[in-house]
């Protein structure tokens, strides 16, 4: 299979359809087939393009050249000149500055394809996840072999230089974590892979574990070598039976090959991995709760500091990284930090795996460079909103933020999102159209936190319960204006006084609602109606 080098995006909104966009799409497919470019050129559509005069509009990447309006009879010439011979067709290019400004969100990724860049998912769906031989055939194990040639300090330096940030939600720089564990004195150290993925809407880690379990083992080997550890754990969510089976098989096969155990491949380096199956508790994804759970106790988060990097599993220095973070390690070691930094934004290099869900035409999993916008995700990958208009997106499962439509052009990376007061979270993008009620949605989120709160600290135990009850009251038409003040106070209190990440982020959806959707909330109380007709209001 050849790699896709160009991508053609064709507008296919109702107005374009009226101007024969369907015929244009068919003509493109035919012309590409005639010139035998099918493997090299991808064709995709944009269901919503906004108020643009000349339609249908065609954008060809990576040059981001805009052609409009394109007629079916223009297509053979376009394909032959631009895609086959590599020459732009000046006569057909869109020159109207107003249009070019309006579709800047489409053309801003000049130089790249709006296709996916797969790093963490590089082997998923390509290799047989139950065959280590297949893994070796796709560069498997080479990164570990490369790392063994380096000093552990150099490995840590590479990860640090790559700027890789934790993909579990918080975005903490992975290299700094590795460095901290490496520098903490101690004979016994642990490497833990956090695969307790339970953020609603997130299933990227499941896909990686089910599709490419060997890469996780390889990354843990590299991490263990770098920090000086000889024992590791993978904490997999109990509900993920297939992932548990696959990782178990992968560990067994690696062990049979001599890739785990004593004196690995004659290098004098020892490392082995245990699997711990979770037992159904969201909170165990919090790193210190996860440690408590491995030790055989209730999954209640510890007070930090001390951080796990200095005092983790059984009090020993422990490195805990998310599955997706680990999946990025072998390519970084193999290709270098500079290569990794060529993806994404300066502050958040690399790619991110997102799950696209909710009211879009195409749901699923994508891996794209950091820094693309929600608008791009919805229109290019999600193939547009299903029914109605885009109202808000919910990122990162329940501990993410609610992103109103007004922020859909903010680049999605850790720092740009923080600047506008929202969070990227773990990579779920739940896209909601205008038939969803904000109060109802936040109530469901509050219910989730109330249910999953471990009960250890009072602010979270009482706060999440109060928030849920108040929101239920409002959605049933019993809300008062004092409730809004109370919610404001609760969301602040949860953030300031809770012990762990669950409580600290439980107030975030409430805060986002108050910031961006206050009018809709007040309508429930002052007018006694739910504007979208979702809440019972009885």
């Amino acid at each position, binding site marked *: 299979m050849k790699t896709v080098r160009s991508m053609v995006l064709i507008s296919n909104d109702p107005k374009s359809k009226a101007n024969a966009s369907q015929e244009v799409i068919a003509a493109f497919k035919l012309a590409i087939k005639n010139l035998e470019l099918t493997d090299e050129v991808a064709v995709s559509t944009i269901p919503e393009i906004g108020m643009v005069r000349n339609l249908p509009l065609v954008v060809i990447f990576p040059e981001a050249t805009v052609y409009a309006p394109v007629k079916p009879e223009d297509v053979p010439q376009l394909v032959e000149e631009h895609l086959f011979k590599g020459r732009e067709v000046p006569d057909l290019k869109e020159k109207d500055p107003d249009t070019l400004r309006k579709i800047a969100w489409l053309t801003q990724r000049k130089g790249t394809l709006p296709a996916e860049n797969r790093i963490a998912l590089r082997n998923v769906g390509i290799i047989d996840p139950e065959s280590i031989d297949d893994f070796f055939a796709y560069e498997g194990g080479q990164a570990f072999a490369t790392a063994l040639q380096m000093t552990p300090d150099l490995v840590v330096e590479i990860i640090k230089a790559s700027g890789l940030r934790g993909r579990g939600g918080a975005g903490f720089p992975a290299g700094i974590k590795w460095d901290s564990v490496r520098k903490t004195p101690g004979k016994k150290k642990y490497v833990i892979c956090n695969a307790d993925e339970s953020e609603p809407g997130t299933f990227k880690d499941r896909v990686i574990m089910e599709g490419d379990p060997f890469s996780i083992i390889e990354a843990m080997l590299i991490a263990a070598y770098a920090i000086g550890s000889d024992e590791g754990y993978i904490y997999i969510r109990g509900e993920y039976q297939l992932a548990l089976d696959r990782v178990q098989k992968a560990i067994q096969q690696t062990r049979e090959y001599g890739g785990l155990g004593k004196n690995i491949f004659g290098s004098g380096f020892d490392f082995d991995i245990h699997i711990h199956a979770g037992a*159904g508790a969201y909170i165990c994804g919090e790193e210190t709760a996860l440690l408590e759970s491995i030790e055989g106790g209730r*999954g209640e988060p510890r007070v930090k500091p001390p951080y796990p990097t200095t005092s983790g599993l059984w009090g020993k220095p422990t490195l805990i990284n998310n599955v997706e973070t680990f999946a990025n390690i072998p390519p970084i070691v193999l290709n270098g930090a500079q290569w990794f930094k060529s993806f994404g934004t300066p502050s958040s290099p690399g790619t991110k795996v997102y799950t696209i869900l*909710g009211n879009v035409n195409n749901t699923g999993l994508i891996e794209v460079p950091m820094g693309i916008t929600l608008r791009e995700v919805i229109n290019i990958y999600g193939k547009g909103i299903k029914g109605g208009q885009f109202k808000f997106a919910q990122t990162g499962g329940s501990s993410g933020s609610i992103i109103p439509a007004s922020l859909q052009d903010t680049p999605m990376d850790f720092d740009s999102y923080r600047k506008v007061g929202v969070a990227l979270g773990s990579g*779920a993008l739940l896209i909601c159209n205008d038939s969803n009620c904000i109060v109802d949605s936040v109530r469901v989120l509050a219910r989730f936190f109330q249910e999953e709160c471990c009960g250890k600290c009072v602010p979270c135990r009482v706060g999440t319960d109060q928030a849920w009850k108040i929101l239920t009251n409002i959605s049933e038409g019993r809300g008062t204006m004092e409730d809004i003040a109370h919610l404001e106070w609760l969301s602040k209190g949860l953030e300031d006084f809770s012990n762990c990440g669950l409580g600290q982020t439980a107030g975030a959806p409430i805060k986002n609602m108050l910031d961006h959707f206050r009018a809709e909330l007040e309508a429930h109380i002052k007018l006694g109606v739910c504007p979208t007709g979702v809440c019972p209001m009885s």
Partner: protein
Amino acid sequence: MEENLTQSIPTIDELKQEISLILQETEKDRESLIPILHKLTQRFGYISSQALYEISAQTSIPLAEVFSVATFYRMLPTQQRGRHVILFCESLPCHVVGGRELFQALKAELQLEPGETSKDQKWTLLTTSCLGVCNFGPVISIDGNIHGHLTPESLPEILNKYE
């Protein structure tokens, strides 16, 4: 995982024997407590109070701690359940694609509220947070098998497949 559960209430001797069998394979330390409880759940479908007592006696972990750990985790039930356990995903991704209507239909169809078991011991209805198959929402899990893209109309057909 919950497919091979036997529904008859185990006798104390059966429990004792099963627990000592499990303990032959694992260490008796604190770290093994959750794996032991997992295995008992797989074997009997739930962890009875006698089972908790026996684990405590055979591992020397205090009963209060065994109880506190078992009751903390959702997948370690301490109450007997029906022959088929339905987990309904009540997280937002399923909620916005029709989960709300589906839950009303499910409750009406089974005549159960969440947490209840039907009188004939056929169904137990439980709510759960995300099952990690959100692109097929709304989703329910019956005995560990996932059914996705459900609607109130397609629900009875699925439920009728279970005896």
